[in-house]
Each structure stands twice: as C-alpha cells, then as structure tokens.
C-alpha cells in the first residue's frame, strides 16, 4: 500500500495549516495591513510541491470556515489554487532568485483573480467585510461593472498580500538549516 502522501509530507502539511492559522494572527497583532493567511501554503508549496500545497490551502479554509467564518469556507477553492500555482512555480524554478519570486507571486495573484472574482461577485455581491469593500463600492460608483470592480480590487489587494507572503515564505525556507532542508525533496529548487 503506497499512500498518496508520505508521512513526512503529511506532518509538513499539518504544520503548514497551523502556520496559516497562526501567522495571520501575528500580522494583526503587529497591526500590519495584510492577511498573510497563506504563508504556510507557500512554505508547503516550496518544500513539497503543488498537490500537497493545494490540500494544505483547502483544508486550512475548511477548518477556518467552521472555526471563524463561513466566508472562509466559500473561498476554499481560492486557497487551493494559491497552493497549486505556487507549487507549480516552485517546481519550475520560480523561487530561485528575487525577480523570479516576484514573477511567481504575480502568477499566483492572477490565478487568485480568476477564481476569487466570481465567488466574491456572485456569492457575496462584491462585499466580504474587509476594507477592500470600499474600493469595490467606489469603482462601482465611478461606473465600472460589478465584476470589473471586484476583479480590480481582488487583484490590487492580493498582489500586495501574495508578494509579501511569497517573499516571507521564500526567506523562511532559505533560512532553514541545511539539516532541515535536506529532509524535503522540493527544497533543492529553492535558492
């Protein structure tokens, strides 16, 4: 019997989910204007690849959906896509230098826009209870269609957030001791 994930990948995913749950809290403790609720997903993507990261994001939001807000559960596909795209970028060497990391986070953001915009626009009518709602309302008022306003807002908010998350995850993985990095096959792609 060969399971889908090795036990080590399984424990890594559990750590990634816990990072997602705890580090966002740290950002709000420091009063930083970002969610960074995907750093754990990025770390798993860098160390164990797209599939493990996809599951990490998905499970994070499902747990959150029950613990803190049903809104998070509705956005579970978004969290999954972040993991998938970040993992594919890492496989392709997208975390080997600073410019590549920035490019990878741009790709992740674009994927987020594609998946998050319909959820936000159709399921929630554009508002999710964050400061970004103001931007949606403002753009709407200036005459944009709702879908356009939402897509623009999602892009703007997520670009900052995903660049910061990807950079933090990259710095963290690069800073790992060699003894720890050697345990994960994906770490060789990160420099």
């Amino acid at each position, binding site marked *: 019997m060969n399971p889908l994930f090795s*036990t080590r990948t399984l424990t890594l995913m559990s*750590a990634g989910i816990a990072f997602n749950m705890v580090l966002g809290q740290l950002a709000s403790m420091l009063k930083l204007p970002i969610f960074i609720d995907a750093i754990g997903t990025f770390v798993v993507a860098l160390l164990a690849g797209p599939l493990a990261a996809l599951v990490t994001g998905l499970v994070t939001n499902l747990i959150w959906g*029950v613990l803190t*807000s049903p809104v998070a559960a509705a956005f579970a596909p978004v969290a999954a896509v972040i993991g998938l795209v970040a993992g594919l970028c890492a496989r392709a060497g997208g975390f080997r230098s600073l410019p590549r990391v920035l490019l990878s986070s741009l790709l992740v953001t674009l994927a987020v826009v594609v998946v998050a915009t319909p959820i936000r626009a159709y399921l929630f*009518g554009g*508002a999710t209870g964050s400061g970004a709602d*103001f931007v949606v309302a403002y753009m709407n*008022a200036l005459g944009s269609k709702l879908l356009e306003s939402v897509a623009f807002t999602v892009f703007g908010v997520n670009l900052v957030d995903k660049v910061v998350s990807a950079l933090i995850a990259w710095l963290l993985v690069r800073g790992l*001791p060699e003894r*720890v990095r050697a345990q994960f096959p994906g770490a060789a792609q990160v420099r």
Partner: protein
Amino acid sequence: MHPFTGLALLLPLGLLAMRIDLPSLLAVALALLLVALGMRPLGGARLRQWALVLLPLALGLTLVHGRYLDSWLGQVVDNRQAALLAALRLWLRVAIVLAAALLWLSSITTASLTRALFASRLPPGVAYLLASPLLLSEQLKARLAAVSEAQAARGVDVAAPFFRRWRSLLALAAPLVVWTLSDVGERAAALDARAFRSRLRRTTLDAPQPAIWERWLWYGCALLALVLAGSLLWR
C-alpha cells in the same frame, strides 16, 4: 451528544437558510440561535467573535449594494430598497450559518472531536490532517506568546514605526517556523514508529458512541440536505 450530530444539523440548516427568502423568518431564526449561543458557557466571547465577522460584513454589504458612494458622487440610484433587501438576506444567511457553527463548537471539545474523527470512516491520514492542525496551532500560539515576550525584552516593539514592524514580523515568525519545521521529520518518524496508516481500519479507544437516535438523525439530515439542495437547484 456525539460531536458529529451538531455538524450533521449544520448542513441542512445552512441549505434551509438559503431556501427561505422571508427576511423576518430568517431574522427570527438568527435571534433564536444568538440567544442560545449567549446562554452557553463563554457565550459572551462567542457572541463577540460572531459580531467581529458579521458587523464588518454588514458595513461592506450596505456600502456596495446600497451604492451610497454613487449618491455621494451625485448620481441617482434606483432600486436601492430592493438591492438592500437582497444584501440583508445574504447577511442573515451568513449570520445564521456562523451562529449555528459557533453553537456547535460550544458543544464539543477538541479532544472529543479528534477522537470522533479518528474513529470515523475517514482514512486515518485525512483524520490526522483535520485534527492535528488544531492541536499544533494551540502549541504555536503558546510558543508565539513566549517568543514575542522574548523579542519584546530585546526591544522589538509592536507599537514601533511601520517598517520596523515588518522586520519584527520576520523576527517573530522565523524562530516559530524553523522550530516547527525541524520537528516535522521527528513527528513523521514517531507516527511511522507507531504503525500509523499501516492498516485501513484502526481501533479507537473511548470513541464517542452515537446513540441510535443520533444515527437516525444523521441519515435524516443527509436526506433533508439532499432534498433542500435539489429544491435550490430546481428553483
């Protein structure tokens, strides 16, 4: 009560909230749930948690659907009433689901939920993935408190200027992440050494046993959820 019973009720309740259009009925349901939640132990804290999500959502929905910025920019908005009513319905639905979820959470402990997950028909790996982050994040929060105390002693100030706070974020996160990731290999070895996932079915001691009526309730809820989902799609 078995931890899954509340969860089983949650699904048809959410679908029912989607099916009902009458705001007054939804509001009554929400009021009942909130009163029940307030009467639970730590009810105040749970109500506050509920409000922390739902009040910003109410503001955002009002702003976007009510198109108040349009009026402010001097445009004429028609159908504001209808748009706000739709927003109110959406808000009530989300509010009901969260209140019900919090009510369920107030009736279980992490320990009983973990045992129920491990005893369920889910593969042990899936049960582990759902249960262990809860345990680990509790440990990490305790660890974070300790680290932030240590950093504060070394002069990392949470009220520092903006850019210094960014550096504090890394200074606080790095030890936590390195510490946890160094343990990942050992955790895996410990699970392997106890033959974790070596059999498809594992025994679980002291697993919460559902009563006969609870089993029937689960099946009833599943059936009801199916019917409701069907009627939602058919509409």
